[in-house]
């Protein structure tokens, strides 16, 4: 695997842009995070230096804000639609409380952060999903925000860069969450029909209703190494077919082999690859 690159220092503006979460600062003793892939206990400070990529190449899950900092030019991101948050449309037992708790813990109102930014000086509309908000699940608010990003981008003839991480539709919003697949797809299609470029970056995990809608609708689909990408959950598939799942099932590498991805790009190279692709598709 060609992950030696990871140990090179990231481009400095990226690194400077890296914002330590308060938890890290608070703790005097260096915390470590265990890599689920190789088992190495990586010091948090090291992870921050290397865009949260382990020395083995494993990409740790990162919050939407962190990814925005890794991906976009310093201070270029301006947030849009930040006030949109989920309601409890079908009064699902426990959902309102759960939402409150998640909002408090994540300090976010919803599972996606949207805005405008430049990536290598290329202007784009961007949405980044957040695994730390109900596993990036899509309810009415996520659907609305993503729809608005595409509408906004269409209005301003901007390309969209979208980073997905999601457990799928948010079942606590019942059929309303399913409808978000149609709603977002409609916005993607209109944006596309107007000749605009949409690049999707699929990160671990991208599953369910998000895979079956805007994640798979990019003009170009990039994935992070090792990302799980699929429609049904692996456990559900295993239970359904009562067979051992093949090696690498639903991994980005296998999807690439089967023709469902354009390219797998290590985190450290994402900014330059995306910026080049944006440039190649720029209208002006």
């Amino acid at each position, binding site marked *: 695997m060609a992950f030696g690159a990871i140990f090179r220092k990231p481009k400095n503006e990226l690194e400077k842009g890296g914002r330590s979460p308060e938890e890290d600062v608070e703790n005097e003793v260096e915390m470590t995070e265990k890599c689920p892939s190789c088992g190495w206990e990586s010091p948090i400070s090291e992870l921050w230096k290397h865009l949260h990529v382990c020395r083995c190449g494993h990409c740790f899950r990162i919050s939407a804000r962190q990814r925005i900092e890794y991906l976009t030019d310093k201070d270029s991101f301006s947030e849009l639609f930040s006030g949109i948050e989920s309601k409890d449309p079908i009064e699902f*037992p426990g959902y309102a409380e759960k939402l409150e708790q998640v909002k408090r813990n994540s300090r976010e109102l919803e599972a996606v952060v949207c805005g405008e930014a430049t990536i290598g000086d290329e202007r784009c509309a961007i949405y980044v999903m957040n695994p730390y908000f109900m596993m990036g699940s899509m309810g009415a608010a996520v659907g609305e925000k993503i729809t608005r990003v595409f509408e906004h981008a269409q209005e301003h003839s901007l390309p969209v860069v979208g980073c997905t991480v999601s457990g799928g539709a948010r079942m606590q919003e019942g059929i309303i969450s399913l409808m978000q697949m149609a709603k977002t797809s409609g916005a993607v*299609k*209109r944006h596309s029909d107007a000749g605009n470029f949409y690049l999707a970056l699929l990160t671990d995990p991208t599953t369910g*209703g998000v895979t079956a809608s805007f*994640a798979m609708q990019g003009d170009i689909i990039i994935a992070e190494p090792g990302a799980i990408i*699929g429609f049904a959950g692996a456990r559900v598939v295993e239970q*359904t077919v009562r*067979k051992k799942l093949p090696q690498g*099932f639903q991994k980005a590498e296998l999807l690439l082999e089967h023709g469902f991805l354009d390219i797998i790009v290590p985190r450290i190279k994402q900014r330059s690859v995306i910026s080049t692709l944006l440039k190649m598709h720029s209208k002006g």
Partner: protein
Amino acid sequence: MDNITEGATKEMTATEKKVSDGKARDKKSRERDKKAVEKVSLEKTPYDFVKGARSKERLTSLDFIKGIFTGFIELHGDRRFADDPAVVGGVAYLGDVPFTVLATEKGRDTRTRIKRNFGAPNPEGYRKSLRLMKQAEKFNRPVVCFVDTSGAFCGIGAEERGQGQAIAENILTLMTLQTPVLSILIGEGGSGGALALAVADEVWMLENAVYSVISPEGCANILWRDPDKAAEAAQDLKLTAEWASALGVVDKIISEKSKDPEKMLKDISELIENWYKGVCAMASDELTQKRYERFRKIGL
């Protein structure tokens, strides 16, 4: 049991001959349907709706197609990989207007259910329907979809051949398909696998059908790690036609009160004809704009 098997054999020959046939079968299915309607309408709790929608006695998509349209010719295959029997597609007349008809088909007894993979499509099924909806667009034919599936198939091959991508492409294409689309949920409307045929200008739902983002069993399993709490989950998921209508997800609830399924099918065919009269003169831009707005407003 014999009756059902015989009915099923006839169903298969009918499809294979690509013609709608058989008054004898109709009689048998009528008797069966009567029971189904009686059984379902007595039940009340949301989970009973789920069980009713899954019942083998319920009419399947092929019954609807044959009861509503004439001269149905089934068209097979996705031109990419295979023909998926869980998705039925073809052309048929309603009055003197040719329609493209698409459906998920569960089959009605063990044998046909196995053949149809219990109505759980593989990516090929969605790609077949994609091919046929694009064909409909080319020839300006209206599209009617019948949805009855617990969901897209959760299989190794299905995942490897891009189940998510196949559904995503259907939804995307339906969103701006330049021809009128109507979708009718006739039994189980399960998740993305159902939505792949339910993005339409109007979505109708039979009063005893269910439409849900996840099966109650799946929901119970995730929330409480206990699939036996499915009844509770069904309650919480608000998956009945009444709820779908109240939430603006479906436009019309079709009554199943009639004891005579033939009459119900005739009523539906009239409803479809009326719907088509309303949309056939509409410019495709206006049509797709309205379709977009229809889904755009669901949620926040």
